[in-house]
């Protein structure tokens, strides 16, 4: 018995008959292959494919029916899409796309099935064991109720006056969801943590921070939710993750120290970087998102990174890139997995610290807030300054001699909650907007510190109410008369585009979306 393992997801219909024939004839199926019988390859989502790798599989094969012979019609086509996307992500992750294969067989093709299994097993053996170690298991909280009490007092939830201002501001409540931050706060204080509605609602909150802004007692409800989630997850609560927990899974695999990630391998060579620079550009997870959503939303959020680098180059900054860059951990921290957030943070810190970096520039508001605020709050010191690229640009443009090409578009702006509210800097992107498009920029009804969320945060709790909220938001954007929605966070772009896919509302919700960095990169020039 070898010490590597291959998971074989095998469709019940076509290939399983071939597999059985192999078993019946006592054929020598490689003994490291673990077969899992499934009803249809089309139902094995990217999350399930990936989960096997998260759990330490060395290879995964999805084996189904030949195109055209799928019992359900589109199963094989779906499987092709899922495998292609997941392979792209494995590549970026440094695991290598060839650890995942799709193969199709007719029931009578047992010979070629056996050949495939032997070949795949040899290939995987050649690649060696997977560098992924199963991530830190959630450690149950010893005294859950005491821990909850501590979180309640740490965020001074007792100060709640029951005034209801939070519920009257919460975009989820306003979208008609039977959900109230005030009610959650009261229920938790009253010891009602196990009530089904609390268990569900804790994962629905968008952690957008709007209620905190309105609360006369300054109850930091989103921070409270963040900490409560960690306790509940460790006590076995369902985390209501969207996309089958794919993203949390992805981020947890990055906690494996031996994994040699390749987050920048796609970058074109006309962007100028310098490994010796004291300025580091931290990109974030946009390239992973683009692959995941390639066939559905066709987002191109990694353009934000390219345009950021171009803008840095414009001002003669040739930053270093961190070849070991891992996810900053934002989504794990905010979706109840602090232990693995800490591991990611530590790995990033270890990779950054001995490089003599003096300043980290990032274009992602989540990375910005996480590196700047949450790393130090968890005792992780990067030993350098954290700058949002908007601050850098504002400072450079302000020096003068820089102009912007006029553009014949009407703009409106979606505030990123991490920058506009958590960091309380709604003016920063607006200063830049007013430089590029002083006469064609119009605010939505709710903007700046009062802006409505894009609909999701940390990939949890996406439901029909958050969808309703997104529809409301896009309608607000459209009713400004603008034809270009400017965003400043890759996630805002992803979630809002997702809402625009609504087949019933169709054109009514359609609007071009562009990141502010890309807008700036297109318009800026030396005078």
């Amino acid at each position, binding site marked *: 018995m070898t010490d590597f393992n291959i998971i074989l997801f095998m469709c019940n219909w076509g290939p399983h008959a071939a597999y059985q024939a192999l078993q019946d004839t006592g054929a020598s199926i490689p003994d490291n292959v673990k077969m899992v019988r499934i009803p249809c390859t089309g139902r094995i989502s990217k999350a399930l494919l990936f989960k096997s790798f998260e759990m330490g599989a060395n290879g995964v094969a999805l084996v189904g029916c030949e195109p055209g012979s799928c019992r359900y019609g589109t199963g094989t086509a779906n499987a092709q899409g899922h495998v292609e996307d997941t392979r792209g992500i494995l590549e970026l992750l440094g695991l290598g796309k060839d650890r995942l294969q799709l193969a199709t067989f007719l029931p009578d093709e047992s010979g070629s099935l056996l050949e495939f299994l032997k070949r795949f097993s040899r290939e995987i053996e050649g690649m060696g064991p997977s560098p992924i170690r199963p991530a830190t298991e959630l450690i149950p909280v010893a005294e859950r109720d005491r821990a909850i009490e501590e979180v309640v007092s740490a965020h001074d939830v007792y100060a709640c006056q029951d005034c209801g201002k939070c519920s009257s501001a919460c975009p989820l409540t306003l979208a008609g969801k039977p959900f109230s931050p005030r009610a959650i706060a009261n229920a938790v204080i009253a010891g009602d943590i196990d009530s089904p509605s609390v268990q569900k609602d804790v994962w629905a909150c968008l952690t957008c921070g709007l209620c905190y802004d309105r609360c006369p007692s300054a109850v930091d409800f989103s921070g409270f939710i963040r900490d409560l989630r960690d306790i509940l997850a460790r006590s076995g609560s369902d985390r209501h993750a969207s996309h089958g927990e794919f993203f949390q899974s992805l981020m947890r695999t990055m906690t494996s120290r031996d994994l040699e990630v390749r987050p920048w391998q796609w970058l074109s060579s006309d962007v100028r970087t310098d490994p010796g620079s004291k300025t580091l550009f931290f990109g974030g997870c946009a390239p992973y998102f683009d692959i995941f959503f390639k066939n559905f939303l066709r987002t191109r959020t990694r353009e934000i990174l390219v345009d950021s680098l171009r803008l840095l180059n414009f001002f003669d900054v040739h930053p270093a890139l961190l070849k070991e860059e891992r996810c900053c951990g934002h989504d794990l921290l905010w979706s109840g997995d602090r232990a693995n957030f800490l591991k990611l943070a530590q790995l990033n810190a270890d990779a950054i610290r001995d490089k003599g970096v003096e300043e980290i520039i990032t274009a992602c508001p989540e990375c910005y807030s996480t590196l700047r605020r949450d790393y130090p709050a968890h005792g992780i010191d990067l030993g350098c300054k954290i700058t949002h690229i908007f601050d850098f640009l504002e400072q450079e443009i302000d*020096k*003068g*001699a820089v102009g912007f090409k006029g553009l014949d578009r009407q703009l409106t702006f979606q505030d990123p909650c991490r920058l506009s509210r958590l960091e309380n800097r709604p003016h920063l992107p607006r200063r830049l907007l007013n430089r590029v498009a002083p006469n064609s920029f119009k605010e939505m009804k709710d903007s700046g510190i009062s802006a409505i969320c894009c609909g999701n945060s940390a990939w949890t709790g996406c439901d029909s109410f958050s969808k309703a909220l997104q529809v409301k938001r896009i309608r607000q954007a459209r009713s400004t008369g603008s034809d270009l929605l400017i965003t400043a966070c890759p996630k805002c772009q992803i979630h809002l585009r997702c809402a625009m896919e609504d087949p019933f509302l169709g054109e009514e919700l359609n609007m071009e979306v562009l990141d502010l960095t890309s807008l700036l990169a297109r318009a*800026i*020039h*030396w*005078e």
Partner: protein
Amino acid sequence: MMTGKEKKTSRLEIIFTGFGGQGIILAGRILGKAAVIGDHRESTLVQAYGPEARGGACSAQVTISDRPIHYPYVRRPDVLVCMSQGGFDKFIDQMKEGGALLIDHDLVQPRGFDKRFFSIPSTRIAEELGRKMMANIIMLGFFTAITGAVSVEAARDAVTDSVPKGTEEMNAAAFNRGCDYGLAVLKGLEKKAAGRAGA
């Protein structure tokens, strides 16, 4: 044309011009101080006022040299800094062939001048910084970055040394703004020359 990138010539003649109240003479004096005290060179200043002390045309003629200066009047400036239209109209024909022209973007229209010049909205920036009076200091920062006639440190020290007590920091910030603007202009020229005007 000279820019900060080029070697200092041993003798440089400069005219600062504008209207009374803009601090033209003070700018000239600071420049001379920077050359003498900070950079250990020789310098002279000749000041000329128009008919009215306030509001009328005025100019400061500054010479900077590595050797003793025997004749302090500037007839053919290497650098002409104009903060008023009247000043431009009066002095532009005296500027040396290939000399550097620096102007306030909003106050001067370089009519009839078809060569490259350097402009900065110094008065507007001063207003943004909260004091219109500091336009001269901003212009001085711009001048320093563009011409390299004096070193940045010497000029900044001369500024903080010459302005009223309590306003040193503000004026140093104004100087830096002008200087940064000048560096940005030079960078822009370089990028455009290399055919890389956009991002």
